[in-house]
């Protein structure tokens, strides 16, 4: 009932950004970021259908745009993970890029993060909307963690598929350099220690990926909200003018940040896959020479 009462008071309003996504209604997993996630899903579905409908060798506009995007991503990812892994890794990495990019830019649409529920001050106004209707998924740690964990699981699958469990252990902990005797023992201890550090860094990857993305997008949202509310205390019409003009240049910066964060997330996942699936030919040759 609270939700219904609050919906009556829905109105555009500049709000402070809460660190957590707001639940909508009484169903716990329906948050404002889930709503936007579903919107992103709808956009992707609609545009995919539009781009791939009546495809021809001479592409129409939507097909051309999507082909450019897919080809650009495929070539970049192939340059990192190699022609063998790209066939397996591209669907995930391409999806990550597109989902993050659309989510980030969705957050810049007027109304996203500013229309919501709060303490009513009038029929269609609230003093401060604590619970926006829309919130970009990339500004919700649940979503960024979901993306990072999905990438992590695929990374595990690709790594074990390519090098196997033992290959991964040797790749991580195995000494390199081919030294023997006391120095070889010391080097082996060093590489064992390095391997432990590597395992820690691998375990932390989902957290670093998710927090990096979340932090950047959440910070961008906060900056825009703060700038938009700078002249609120001056009253009309300055609060309205200030809320439009002051954050305006920063929208371009956020467009760039949204693109960069999508690229960073995707390329880091590509690099992780490449690091663990690349065969250390030099090391293998040395290993073979010992036999």
């Amino acid at each position, binding site marked *: 009932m609270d939700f219904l009462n609050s919906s009556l008071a829905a109105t555009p309003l500049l709000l402070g950004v809460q*660190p957590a996504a707001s639940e909508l209604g009484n169903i*716990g997993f329906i948050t404002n970021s*889930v709503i936007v*996630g579903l919107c992103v899903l709808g956009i*992707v579905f609609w545009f995919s259908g539009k781009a791939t409908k009546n495809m021809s060798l001479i592409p129409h506009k939507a097909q051309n745009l999507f082909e450019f995007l897919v080809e650009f991503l495929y070539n970049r990812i192939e340059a990192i993970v190699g022609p063998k892994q790209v066939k397996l890794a591209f669907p995930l990495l*391409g*999806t990550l890029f597109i989902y993050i990019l659309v989510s980030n830019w969705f957050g810049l649409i007027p109304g996203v993060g500013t229309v919501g529920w709060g303490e009513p001050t009038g029929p269609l106004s609230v003093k401060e909307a604590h619970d926006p209707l829309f919130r970009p998924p990339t500004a919700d740690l*649940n979503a960024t963690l979901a993306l990072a964990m*999905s990438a992590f699981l695929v990374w595990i699958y690709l790594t074990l598929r390519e090098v196997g469990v033992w290959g991964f252990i040797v790749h991580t902990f195995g000494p390199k350099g081919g030294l023997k005797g006391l120095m070889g023992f010391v080097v082996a201890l060093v590489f064992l220690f390095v391997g432990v550090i590597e395992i820690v860094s691998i375990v932390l990857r989902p957290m670093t990926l998710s927090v990096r993305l979340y932090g950047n997008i959440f910070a961008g949202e906060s900056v825009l909200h703060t700038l938009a509310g700078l002249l609120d205390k001056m009253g009309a019409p300055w609060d309205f003018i200030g809320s439009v003009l002051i954050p305006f240049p920063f929208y371009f910066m956020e467009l760039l940040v949204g693109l960069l964060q999508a690229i960073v997330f995707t390329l880091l996942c590509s690099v992780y896959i490449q690091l663990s699936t690349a065969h250390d030919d030099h090391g293998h040759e040395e290993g073979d020479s010992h036999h």
Partner: protein
Amino acid sequence: MNLVSPLFGNVAPVLAASGPVGDMIQKFGLAWPKFLAQVLIFLAVYYVLNKFAFGPILAMLEQRKQRIADGESKLEKIAKDLAEAEKNAQAIVDKANADASRLVTEAGESAKALAERKQQEAVHEAGQIMAKAREAARLEHEQLMSQLKREFGRMVADATSRVTGKVLNPDDQARINKEAAAEVSA
């Protein structure tokens, strides 16, 4: 508004933790249901893109790449054929030029030989004409001389007959003709 979900909020609202980590999880709203909902949305996006976008687009890109490669190979073949055709055409032109030069040379030589032959034929014919003319003149001279001798003999015989008043017999006429002819020849 009560944001705590009655469905999940009191059962498993957040990852079970306490202390600073628990506070942080609480602050950022981490919860399994929300996390799983985001995973499901991402998987749905993955399914949609993989089925409706990446597959057809990559197939189209591959088809276009193949088409371009085919076009390139055809272009190379056409260029190769063109070069071959140009080479053949040049060879034909060169051969035609050589043949033309040879024909011109042969025609010149032939014309020269023909001219020489015609000249020789003309000289020969002129010589023959001259010889025939000389022969005809000689025959005519001989004929005239013979006729003159005959006339002269007849006139001598006639004069002798008139002077002597005697009819000359054939032997006398023959002797007088012979003597007259000898005088004329001398």
